[in-house]
């Protein structure tokens, strides 16, 4: 059923820190690696060894410049499904293949019933869905539903592939419906925000803003002069004494 189910209160999602992301593409790469064999596998690659290589990825890392001059900065920006609370990609689906799970809010596609009409991708403002042109069905981020509940892997690894691989800890996973969870606390402390809030789809995933660069100290300390004790070299110590007279 493509109507949005009543929420259980649990909203699993990601918090992405734009301050620490270095744009290394590890999240995108590990996502592709895991999901090529995961819940919505395979993820096709067309012409992988020649010009025009392209394929389905659930996570794409853009880089932007924001602001001008000394205030300006480069921001790396991973873009993936935000598992919205009121996702239009679900309600437009004519077959019921696109659905939102009541128990944890994850938005998924049933590739056995998807007809590949592409309307859900048209309805998503974030470009989170990509058509698998090999299989003729829609594919999207699963929030690694096959990792986070997977009791056959060590508990510490029961997180989305993008989170576990991030070398700078810029990606966090947890329950954003619980105000006491680590991710909710982080969002509250850092002023996490929604992407395109004006579209009204209430994304679950939050982004943390880049911190403002520290203002330069208006009264920088004068360079400290070396004391005789700093000068280990006897020749320099004599020179310092001679010149200081």
């Amino acid at each position, binding site marked *: *059923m*493509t*109507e949005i189910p009543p929420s259980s209160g649990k909203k699993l999602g990601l918090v992405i820190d*734009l301050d620490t992301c270095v*744009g290394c593409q590890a999240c995108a790469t590990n996502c592709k690696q895991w999901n090529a064999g995961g819940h919505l596998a395979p993820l096709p690659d067309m012409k992988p060894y020649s010009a*025009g290589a*392209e394929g*389905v*990825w659930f996570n*794409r890392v*853009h*880089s*932007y*410049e*924001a*602001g*001008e001059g000394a*205030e*300006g900065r*480069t*921001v790396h*920006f991973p*873009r993936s499904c935000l598992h919205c609370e009121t996702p*239009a990609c679900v*309600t*437009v*689906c*004519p*077959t019921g*293949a696109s659905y939102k799970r009541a128990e944890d809010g994850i938005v998924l596609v049933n590739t056995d*019933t*998807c*007809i*590949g*009409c*592409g*309307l859900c*991708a*048209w*309805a998503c*403002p*974030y*470009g989170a869905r*990509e*058509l698998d*042109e090999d*299989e*003729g*069905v829609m594919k999207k981020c699963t929030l690694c539903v096959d990792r986070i509940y997977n009791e056959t892997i060590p508990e510490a690894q029961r997180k989305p592939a993008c989170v576990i691989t991030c070398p700078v800890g810029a990606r966090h996973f947890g329950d954003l419906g619980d105000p006491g969870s680590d991710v909710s606390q982080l969002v509250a402390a850092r002023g996490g*925000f*929604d*992407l*395109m*809030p*004006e*579209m*009204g789809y209430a994304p679950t995933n939050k*982004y943390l*803003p*880049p911190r403002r660069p520290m203002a330069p100290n208006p009264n920088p300390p004068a360079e400290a002069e070396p004391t005789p004790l700093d000068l280990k070299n006897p020749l320099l110590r004599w020179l310092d004494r001679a010149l200081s007279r």
Partner: protein
Amino acid sequence: MNPAPSIVFFTTASGAGYGLLFWLGVLRPLRLLPASPSFALLALAIALLLITAGLASSLLHLGRPERAWRALSQWRSSWLSREGVAAIATYVPAGIMGLALLADRPGLATVAGMAAAIGAAVTVWCTGMIYASLKTVRQWHHPSVAPGYLLFAGFTGAMLLAAIGALAGRPVVPAMLSILLAIGALAAKRSYWKAMDAPKPAAAPTLESATGLGFIGRTRPLDPPHTEQNWLLREMGFRLARKHREKLRNLVILGFVATIPLALLAMIIGGPFGALLMVLAALAALAAMLAERWLMFAEATHTVTLYYNGES
């Protein structure tokens, strides 16, 4: 947005077919059309042929056409599903109308024809709402889009009915109707284009709101996430039309305008030559509709392109 030929053909052909079915069902009980059952049967056959060809073409757009029947299930939330249900439901009264005409049951044919007219209007409305309900595409999420689908279906349908009427020697009512609708279509299209060419509303999404980086300052793309194409860019980043916008718009206007003198002349001349002119007018209307539908897709921009080129 990518103007997939299967969808451009579908909305043009089915739109004209449903328009024809609508006017046939409405005008026939008012005795404004040739009375013979053979005329109604011919018009009904052409309408159903166009509708069926269009629907078949729309299946080509699917990644898995063999599962198309599943699209009938989610009519509670999905306009695409509603369109499918309405399209199939409309075959029932249309089919009954055909059988009643064959069996010489004029009362039943009239009732079934009116039911088919309602079905046709509902189906075209659903088609329009598929596009009009998408907030992600500013050019589609506009109050004139769904009524426009009705208007253009009505125009091309009336034009076809006039052409079939001319072949039967009585085209005046549908021809006058099509002239009125042509003027309406021209006015609607011009006011729509004017609204689209106006500066974007301040509330429209920007790269700053899409990334949340507006608090730092103006935001622009630096490095793309991939250097080759992907499906998103081919489907939603189609840009060719904006380059040829003016020429294509003029072509649409020319096609709509041309139907008016052609239809008038056809009515004045009458006879086989007049019928030929009326058929030409209908073909001009359909050709202009194809161009209009192509532009409707090709001029539309999707918010995902904000992430790629900072514009939408």
